[in-house]
């Protein structure tokens, strides 16, 4: 799923949930041209993928061969990361 909203800024980072461990994740990352930056903290089966072929910030989720990762049966869940405006209080 792609988080969408008004004024969102889409990055070239993805959060992906793949069971089967690091190797499996690496394999799928390579398949769609991502780089697997490793597990996200302590969240099992959740990996941080980076897609260098997508611009670092965009107003829209740009489509391309990399988008097929969302359809891959081995991928339980994938989300392109959106910049979340955060203010200091």
């Amino acid at each position, binding site marked *: 799923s792609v988080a969408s909203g008004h004024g969102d800024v889409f990055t070239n980072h993805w959060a992906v949930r793949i069971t089967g461990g690091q190797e499996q994740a690496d394999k799928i990352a390579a398949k769609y041209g991502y780089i697997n930056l490793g597990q*996200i903290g302590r969240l099992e089966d959740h990996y941080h993928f980076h897609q260098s072929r997508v611009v670092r910030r965009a107003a829209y989720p740009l489509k391309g061969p990399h988008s097929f990762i969302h359809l891959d049966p081995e991928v339980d869940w994938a989300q392109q*990361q959106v910049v979340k405006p*955060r203010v*200091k*209080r």
Partner: protein
Amino acid sequence: HAQSHATIHFNDPKWTNMWYIHCNNKSSHCSADMNILAAWQRGYTGKNVVVTILDDGIERNHPDLAQNYDHLASYDVNGNDHDPTPRYDSRNENIHGTRCAGEVAAVANNSHCIIGIAYNAHIGGIRMLDGDVTDIVEAKSLGIRPDYIDIYSASWGPKDDGKTVDGPGPLTKQAFEQGIRKGRKGLGSIFVWASGNGGRQGDHCSCDGYTSSIYTISISSTTENGNKPWYLEVCSSIMATTYSSGEFNERKIVTTDPRHRCTDGHTGTSVSAPIVAGIIALALEANLLLTWRDVQHLLVKTSRPVHLKADDWKTNAAGHRVSHLYGFGLVDAEAMVLEARKWRTVPPQHTCSQMPERRTRYIHAGQSLNCSINASGCSEEPELHVDYLEHVVVKVQIVHPRRGDLEINLISPAGTRSQLLAKRLFDSSNEGFRNWEFMTVHFWGERSQGTWTLEIIDSLSKLRNPEVLGNLKEWTLILYGTSQDPYQPYSAQNSHSRMLEIPAPEEEPEQEEEEEDQYNGPCHSECGDQGCDGPDADHCLNCVHFSSGSLKSGKTCVSHCPLGHYEDIASRRCRRCYKGCERCVGRSVSDCLSCRRGLYVNALNSSCIDTCPPGYFADENQRQCLKCHDTCMRCLGYADRCTACREGYSLAGMTCVPECTNGTFFHLEEMTCSPCHSSCRTCAGPGKEECIQCAEGYLQQEWQCVQTCTPGYYSGEAAGVPYKMCHRCEENCLSCSGPGTTCTKCKEGYSLVSRTCIVYASCNNADEVFCEMVKSNRLCEKKLYRQFCCRTCLMNG
């Protein structure tokens, strides 16, 4: 009333300016209203507790932080490395984290800046705001070393513009839940959050998913006079309050500032989260076994309305005073540590989700829609049963043309009213609420059963078409709490307090049985060949299997001996096990197989004891004393949940970390002490840029330790640091002998005039009169006026 504490004195220059401390100058007579001094006087200063600040970085070699800085409680998620040092820029964007850190654990009595509330705690920083903040970034930040870090403090959130509804993404929600479930080795990580900071934009902190989470402790602020600060947002999830900044004529907070400085300009609810993080650190020092819910109960119990001015203070049905501005009131550090010391863990949390109401109901503009649910509190399901309330959440799905026109209230069976959402002037969104969760703590301690009423008020704002109605599609009431009174001791965990249930008498001597009247009916199946004098097993004259009991307590025949006894085959009698033993194969202590509830097999001599010896912990499942982790001298509940360390290790959180001597640092990956760079006395890593304090004979210059200052710097003392530092010369100056105008050589394009550097420019209007004016007014000595042809005028005398 503020208690006066006459004896505490610190040499930190800003000590008397902190938290509105009132010291009268004649004596060291000081008092402060959050009772922090009183907690210190009881000896709690945050020792061994680990706190981290999620923000834009922490200046780890700040003279007032370095000594307490803990690189294991730090990380740079933005830069993906272990150094959370903030990025410096001319606009000072990244000062926030260092300021917050100082409030928690600035070192005491080092004659520098201030004193942190937990001035002996470990302090770290997670740099994660200085870059694109995404769900991944937040989830990673909240998941950093949860078994080592006790408290995560965050003073940021979604925009406070009065029209945003935002919260943690899916990954961050999972990180919260995992931290609660597994953090602090099962006790639950503690997340402290600054509540909203956009009162003037008519915002409401219920639209901030971080402060509305039951897993975070949301903290509000009041001014030094107990007034509502201009920036304060109200909402029902606020737990407690601390002092912070106020109106322009009221003071702000004093704390550490980057570039080794000290500031008295820290403001907002950003101030309040670290203050409570520090106070919780004191409480954890008093009781390291407090769970995440224990901490929230403590805050509810000890926070006080005192002189906080709010017109909505009310007393809920459990007797707690609570307000939408200040939660349960001003924190009280002394009360927290006193309660913590004797605190009994509250019973397990139950979650009862009442069946969602799915009937679509129209919300008529200018009217109020009321819907009710008759809640049983899941009393029919013991595992879910909530009788005593903690958090209450209402999840709603509302379609509406202008979200900001809505106000939502929830009324409990006891009649307590909590405003879940107030109107928001600037929120003209037509997105409504999609499964948004509103949370309130206002019903804390009330009973759950009865009718709950959700009230939705739709005020028609000018620009809206009244024909277009909003509607409530679905709402679910989720109750969190316990099935029994949380403050009454309950069985399970407190079994230590229960004495042995069965007294352990010595063996009674055999006694002859007395004769009975003649009985002719059938005997019990356990009766042996000698028959019986009645139908029951205690009427047998002998037994098929075993006889149990004594003449005094009554003998009976049994097929198997009861717990606490073993089957003596020879005599066909059930005989008692050794004192405290539940299962045994013989009478002696070494025959014991398992102990009674509340007792544990002592591995050293296999006796049953209720307190394990040092170096062992009581394992509830096996009912055995098991060995602690080899670095632990004492542990509780788990082998690696240490409460005291062996020689050569120091306690941090519940982990024993090797005490690395000066010149070495603890390398987490290698789990050893590795050497610092030769120029470092203490460091956070092997590189020469990772010094925290410089070695003998070295001077600190920016992030390195050098033997001599490079051009553009001069060496000089630094307050609070046991060694000299290289300070930067004046702008455009290449070499100088000290602060101020002491330049001896300028950069290219500047000329040296009266020991200061002036831009190398001549000008064409330096006629006599003009130069006279320049010189007579000594304009050249003021930086602002230097461009007035100083060089030319001075050059020609």
